[in-house]
Structure formats: structure tokens, C-alpha cells
């Protein structure tokens, strides 16, 4: 369980995350939604020990993030940030291999290699394993990063806007994969999404943030209501039922 207790973060006097208490890990896929600047990425930063809270406590399986060794946490929690601009010329295989770093510290065992092979096979990257990351398409690159996170073999996986810069087909592909990671591999995935319809389709639970606070936290279907979404995004959102699924219409 990832738990935040009264966590607050301020940047230059501005409160970005405001006294948030929430826990993740009960559901397979949790979507974190909210307008730009709602504090979603900062929340991930706080959990992923990249940002220190000004107040409150973050724990992963009861381990305080501030005091537990980074390596210990890296075996329980994997965070993939948005905009993974990797300047280094690394192959897909190299990248996935680095996912084993928390376990191997650079000395790969047979078990490590099995994890690497499994992750590459799971994301169907075998044909691209010798390719450099800058030679891949956006969708392939995103899959390579997710393979790295899979190889890290953690229970919790945090994905910050994994659909950024992807086309329709690849967005669907990544979300289907996220769902499968939860259902088949037992991962607990928390992902920031901008498209609420993807959230509604693939997530079990939706957490909505606005101005640093959690304003809605419920099963996906309950959040997909016009008044809730309007309050989150401060704009009118129409929700229709299509084939038994709620679909948000926000195209004006």
C-alpha cells in the first residue's frame, strides 16, 4: 500500500499539493485525473522520493519514503515520469537491463536475465531489442520504457502521462497493456491520464485532483458524471452512455 498522510508541498509560497491524505494499492488500475497544475505530477514526485514534502508523510508498504533506502524502495515501486527524453544512445535491451538495477546492482544473475527476457517478450520488443532508442517510433519507445519498469519487478507502478505524444492506436495499446499488467501480473498501477474516457474505460478507480487537493475519489463510473467532471475541470462536460459505458463529451 502506498499511503500519503497529510502531505503538503509548496513551491515559492504556492501550495502545489495541499494536505493530501490518500492511499493507493487496493485496485488494479487507478487513474489520476485533473487539470494542468492540479499537482498530479508533484504527487508522483512525492511518492517517488524526487520531491520532499513540506509536511506529512509518504509510506510504501509501511516504509517511510524519506528514511528508507532508495534501493529498497526501488524494489517495491517503479515510477515512469513523463517526457522521458533520453539523450544517451542506448538499445532497448540496455534500457530493460537497467530496470534490473535495484536487484542486480549491475551484476546480472540468471534470474535477472529471465526477468529481462520476460519483459521484452511481454511487450513484444524482441525484434527491436538491438535498436537504439532514438531509432524507435514514439509508441515503441514508450513500450521500451514500460518494459524497463516491468523488469524492475515491483508491485507498484506509477506512470505519469504514459499516453503523451502517442497516436490513437498506440494510446489504446498502452492502456490495454496497463490493464493486463494489473490483471495478469498483479501489478498495482497508478497512472496520470488527461483523457477521462481512457480513465473511465481502463481504470477501476479514478482520483481527481484540483488545486492541490483530491476532489473526487471513487470507482470510475461514479466519477464519470457531468457535475463531478465540471467541478474538476471547471468547464462543462457532457456524459453520455454509449454501449453501456459512460463517455465524456468535452469538445465544445
Amino acid at each position, binding site marked *: 500500500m502506498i499511503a500519503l498522510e497529510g502531505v503538503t508541498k509548496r513551491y515559492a509560497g504556492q501550495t502545489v499539493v495541499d494536505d493530501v491524505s490518500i492511499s493507493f494499492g487496493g485496485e488494479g488500475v487507478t487513474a489520476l485525473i485533473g487539470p494542468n497544475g492540479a499537482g498530479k505530477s508533484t504527487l508522483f514526485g512525492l511518492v517517488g522520493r524526487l520531491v520532499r514534502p513540506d509536511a506529512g508523510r509518504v509510506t510504501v508498504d509501511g516504509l517511510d519514503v524519506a528514511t528508507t533506502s*532508495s*534501493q529498497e524502495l526501488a*524494489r517495491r515501486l517503479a515510477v515512469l515520469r513523463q517526457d522521458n527524453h533520453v539523450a544517451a*544512445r542506448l538499445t532497448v535491451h540496455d534500457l530493460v537491463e537497467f530496470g534490473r538495477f535495484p536487484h542486480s546492482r*549491475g551484476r546480472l544473475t540468471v534470474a535477472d536475465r529471465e526477468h529481462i527476457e520476460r519483459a521484452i517478450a*511481454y511487450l*513484444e520488443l524482441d525484434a527491436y*531489442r538491438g535498436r537504439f532508442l532514438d531509432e524507435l517510433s514514439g509508441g515503441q519507445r514508450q513500450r521500451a520504457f514500460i518494459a524497463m519498469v516491468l523488469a*524492475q519487478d515491483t508491485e507498484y507502478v506509477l506512470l505519469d502521462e504514459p499516453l503523451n505524444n502517442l497516436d490513437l492506436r498506440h494510446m489504446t495499446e498502452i492502456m490495454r497493456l496497463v490493464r493486463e499488467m494489473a490483471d495478469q501480473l498483479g501489478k498495482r498501477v497508478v497512472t496520470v491520464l488527461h483523457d477521462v474516457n481512457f480513465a473511465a474505460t481502463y481504470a477501476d478507480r479514478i482520483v481527481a485532483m484540483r488545486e492541490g487537493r483530491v476532489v473526487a475519489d471513487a470507482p470510475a463510473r461514479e466519477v464519470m458524471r457531468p457535475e463531478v467532471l465540471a467541478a474538476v475541470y471547471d468547464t462543462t462536460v457532457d456524459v453520455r452512455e454509449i454501449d453501456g459505458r459512460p463517455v465524456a463529451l468535452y469538445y465544445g
Partner: protein
Amino acid sequence: MTALHPQPTSTSTPARPRRTGAGVLVGVLLAVLAVASLFIGVSDVSPVSLLSGDSDGTAAFLLVASRIPRTVALVLAGASLGIAGLIMQMLVRNKFVEPSTTGVTEFATLGMLGTTVVVPGMAVVGKTAVAAVFGLVGTWVFLRVVRAVPVRQLVLVPLVGIMLGGVVGAVTTFFAYRLDLLQSLMQWSQGSFAGVMQGRYEFVWIAGAMVVVAWVAADRFSVIGLGEEFATNLGLDFRRVVAVGMVVVAVITAAVLVTAGLIPFLGLVVPNVVSLLIGDNVRRAIPWVAVLGAVLVVACDIVARTVRFPYEIPLSVVVGVVGAVLFLWLLLRRRSRAH
């Protein structure tokens, strides 16, 4: 999952680019150049003169006292400077940096000038240590400046470094001028292995040791090359690895500076060439960078020794010319790949 990618379009490629053939070739090239380097010079030192033994041991003496030290120093300096560039590029996540484009060399030179003024008779150990500490300060200052001035364009980062180096270099020149030490300064800024002799070059071994340190920590440097967020996610103490990298870079810069003087471009060109060949996985790149760096320096030194035989021109001149051409080629190549 099968529905996602019904038909993989590309054929299977090997997991790692290995280039074994090229590796053997470069290794043999280094061996040949190193042997050639032993037998080039004004005095007659050749396999024949060594074996015949009619020169009352002069040839053997020269070989042990001058030629072997020089060749060893060249190999170690070339290898370690390449590694310093590689590590620096991982720390800054920028392909255009190396000690001499980040002010590190200038800081180390300032350190050397300082010891010459304050403690004139200081042993080489002390000089190297002071230069290394100054180099470390230089690396730190550069990293701070780059962090404080978030430059978006990759080429601007080394420009900031060169400006920083210019400022420090100006301070150094000012004091050297006032204290009548411009000649010493000139000597340091022109890398040459002409003065290398038994008993006066052993500090390059420290630079060589840093190559080993870099190799041991290779995976950590690869991971920090992915950025602080990646490194933290993988359970790595980013700051600690950066600190180790800074020490490696500073010590190599100082040891080579004290032994031979400034050798430009090498740390920039060699890692970039290797990056094109086999990529940036540090563990795989290190042997290539080390051997190619050594090849380049030994080859350039041979040119420096033979082009005006029996006189020598400074090695830094030859390396500068070769390095500048290679660097331009790399830049233009990058542009053509729309980077």
C-alpha cells in the same frame, strides 16, 4: 498481447552491437603504434641495436628511461582523457562537454600556477593533488552554473563552459603575467610528452587507476546518464554517483595536465565516435573509448615527433588539428541526422 502486434515489421537484430572484428583491429593498431612509438627518436634505439648490444647499453638505457615511459604515458593519458570526456558527458547529459570545454582544465591550470607561486619547490604529488582539487572545484562550479542556467539548446552548455573557462583562464593569465610566469603557463597549455622520463611520469598511472574506477562504476554512470529521475527510480544515489564522477574527471585532468599539459578535443571526439559505433552503454563503451583514445594520442605523438624530424612539434597542435576535423565531421553528421 498477440493482438497488439500481429506482424513485427523488422527482422531480429542482435541484442548488443558488438563489432568484434573492429575491436580486434583497433587493439592490433594500438599495439603496432605503441611498438613504433618505442623506436622513433633521434637516438638509435631499434630492435637491432638492442639485440646486438654494441652500443654499450645506451639503447637499452634509453628504452627503459625514456621511450617506454613516454609510450606508457601516452597510452594512459589517451585512454584516461577519453574516459574523462565520457564520464563528463554522462554527468552533464550532453555530448559536447569534456574537461576543456567546461572550465575544469582551466581551474586545474590555475591550481598549478598557485602551487608554483605559493610553494615553488612542491613535489609533483602535491602539484597533482592541488590541481585535482582545483579541477574538482571547477567541475562543481560548472555543474552549478549549468543547473542554475537551464539551457535548452545542447550546444549552449559547452558554450557556457567555454566562457567559464575563459574567465578562469583570464585570471590565471593575469597572475602569470604579473608574476612573470607566462612561460610556464605556455608550457602547460601546450601538451607534449617530450619531457616524459622515468621518475617524471608516474602520476599518469593515477589517471589509469581512474579508468578502472570508471569501469567498476560503469553501470551507475550509464544510469545517471538517463537523468536524476531515472536514477532515483532505480534506487541509485544520484548525488553520490555524480560526486564519484567528478573526482574521476578532476583527477584524470590534473594528472595529465601535470605530466604533459593540455591536450584538447580528445575527451570530446573519442566518446562521440564510440557513441556512433556502439552506443552509450558505459560498460560497453569504456574499453572502446580507452583504446581509441590511446590510439589517437600515440598516433598523433608519432606525427608530432616525425613531421619536423629531428625536432618535435607540440602534441597538442597535432591533436588539436585532428580533433577539430573529427569534431566538425561529428557536428555536421549530427545535423544531417536532424538532431
